[in-house]
């Protein structure tokens, strides 16, 4: 079998489907564990039994989300082994350590602290129980850390050396991989987005109770905690988003250009606050990029380079080069990439023939051009451009919704502190209907991160076409639909079980989860 566009498209679609479904469950767990820990801390400090009931109710919903989401991510590891075997082999040495630590951490955390959190209410001291709840929150987030370090490495590969004999990237410096700025900013931005989603979740359910005139005190208290947590973490999300964009500008300028629909680079570049892309626009033609747009002047230069006057390269500059700004074209990168691939081939041949002198020479050529190796597999320069519309709209959806969430937290906190929240029906409805938007923003964020870095599986080094296995596209197609059914079933189960628990409410909730 040979790689075909159909196989690669189905393999990508399947991975996207599993990743997007998996991410429906994860962020709520990341954030709700902290909200529950905060509520329990209030209970332990005040001794107010209401806070214990409140904590237990949200802990029950956390348990449902955790149980349904459990192991949904493992499917991506199956896919690495079957559909993405070239990729899995090439990154194996880098991913092995973080994923093993993640697996061990998750296992020990879940089997000990989770058990104390759910089983230990009247069996261990209050402080011991509270410590376990906080450790569950910290541990869940640390599990995410390892996965996001691995993802950060794909976006900006550092701390490794490609071994031409084994065809694997070998870790040279663990700390360089661990402190990869791309991975760190990705972790902070991603987990803080989970905190915001969990805050929206608590506000939405509490708003529903207030609209139904049920569990008033419980709902008001929950909204105060969630709004405070949501407001603080939204501000942090904003800061980490700024850092993420800065990292993208340095390491993945094509992604930044696609995020803003910037075809021709400019100094003092603005951010498109709102805009409608012209779908007929093709790279290199004279068509306008936008039908209309509202721009914030200088903001993109500041976001990407922390300078109001900085030049931000556009897609055209990055594909065809820009001598004034020392940007080399994709054609030049392709030439270097082809040299690297050819040298690797020669190295292999000379090694086999026992000609070590020539093998060393070939290796030198390979190492001189290795940074552009992935470009050697592209067919034409335009292949280096991601889907602009998908990246642009996903980015703007995420940012627009994130701004709304911040405003919502300010409003819900203000009216809660003034004890007027129950009378503000419009705000309660807004809180209720914002919950699905929270999930949309989550998924949009991942689309920006992953679709925006196409065509790369590993930035600049390995395009997705070379990362895929030679398997039958029909088998990938079948498993795609299998997963679609399985995940949809799990999602329906989650929603049904959750709705049932919410309808029962905190008063009628079971003493034991």
């Amino acid at each position, binding site marked *: 079998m040979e790689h075909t566009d159909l196989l690669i498209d189905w393999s990508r679609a399947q991975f996207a489907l599993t990743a997007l479904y998996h991410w429906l469950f994860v962020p709520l767990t990341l954030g709700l564990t902290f909200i529950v820990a905060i509520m329990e801390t209030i209970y332990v400090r005040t001794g107010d039994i209401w806070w214990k009931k409140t904590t237990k109710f949200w802990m*029950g919903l956390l*348990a*449902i989300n955790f*149980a*349904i989401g*459990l*192991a949904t991510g*493992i*499917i991506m590891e*199956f*896919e690495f*082994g*079957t*559909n993405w*075997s*070239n990729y*899995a*082999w*090439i990154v194996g040495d880098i991913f092995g350590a973080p994923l093993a630590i993640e697996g061990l951490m998750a296992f020990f955390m879940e089997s000990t602290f989770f*058990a104390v959190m*759910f*089983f*230990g209410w009247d*069996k261990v001291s209050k402080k011991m129980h509270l410590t376990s709840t906080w450790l569950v929150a910290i541990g869940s987030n640390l599990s995410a850390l390892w996965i996001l370090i691995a993802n950060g490495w794909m976006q900006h590969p550092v701390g490794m050396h490609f071994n*031409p*004999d*084994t*065809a*694997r990237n070998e870790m040279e410096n663990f700390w360089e991989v661990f402190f990869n700025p791309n991975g760190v900013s990705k972790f902070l931005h991603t987990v803080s987005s989970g905190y915001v989603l969990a805050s929206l979740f608590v506000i939405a359910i509490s708003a529903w109770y207030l609209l139904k005139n049920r569990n008033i005190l419980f709902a008001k208290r929950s909204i105060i905690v969630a709004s405070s947590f949501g407001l603080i973490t939204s501000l942090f999300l904003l800061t980490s988003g700024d850092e993420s964009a800065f990292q993208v500008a340095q390491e993945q300028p094509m992604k930044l250009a696609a995020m803003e629909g910037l075809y021709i680079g400019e100094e003092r570049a603005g951010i498109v606050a709102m805009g409608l892309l012209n779908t007929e626009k093709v790279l290199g033609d004279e068509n306008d990029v936008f039908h209309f747009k509202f721009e914030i002047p200088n903001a993109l230069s500041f976001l990407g380079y922390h300078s109001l006057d900085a030049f931000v390269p556009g897609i055209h500059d990055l594909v065809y080069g820009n001598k004034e700004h020392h940007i080399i074209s994709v054609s030049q990168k392709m030439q270097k990439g*082809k040299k690297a*691939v*050819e040298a*690797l*081939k020669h190295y*292999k041949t000379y090694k086999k023939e026992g000609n070590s002198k020539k093998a060393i020479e070939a290796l030198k050529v390979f190492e001189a051009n290795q940074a552009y190796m992935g470009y*050697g*597999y592209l067919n034409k320069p335009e292949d280096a451009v991601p889907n602009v519309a998908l990246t642009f709209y996903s980015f703007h959806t995420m940012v627009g919704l994130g701004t709304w969430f911040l405003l919502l937290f300010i409003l819900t906190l203000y009216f809660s502190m003034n004890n007027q929240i129950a009378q503000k029906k419009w705000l309660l409805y807004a809180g209720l209907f914002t919950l699905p938007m929270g999930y949309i923003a989550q998924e949009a964020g991942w689309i920006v991160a992953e679709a925006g870095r196409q065509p790369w599986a590993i930035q600049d080094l390995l395009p997705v076409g*070379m990362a895929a*296995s*030679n*398997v039958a596209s029909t*088998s990938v197609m*079948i*498993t795609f639909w*299998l997963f679609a059914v*399985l995940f949809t079933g*799990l999602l329906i*189960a989650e929603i049904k*079980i959750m709705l049932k*628990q919410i309808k029962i409410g905190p008063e009628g909730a*079971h*003493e*034991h*989860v």
Partner: protein
Amino acid sequence: MKLTSLLKKLFYFYIDGFKAMTLGKNLWILIIIKLFILFVVIKWIFFPNYLATHFTNDTQRSIYILEQLTKEI
């Protein structure tokens, strides 16, 4: 003796916890069904490890990947 007592306590901590579960029982059933589907049905039938099933050792796998990486030229 102390260790046995501690292990006993730990054992009953989990047993009592599972016995007292209400909603959790259904969640555990769901988790077990899901893990069975994932690891026994899906992994076993649909997701064999490509390199593990096609090659017997890492040397063969390396050679194959290098061929893949250099075949375009």
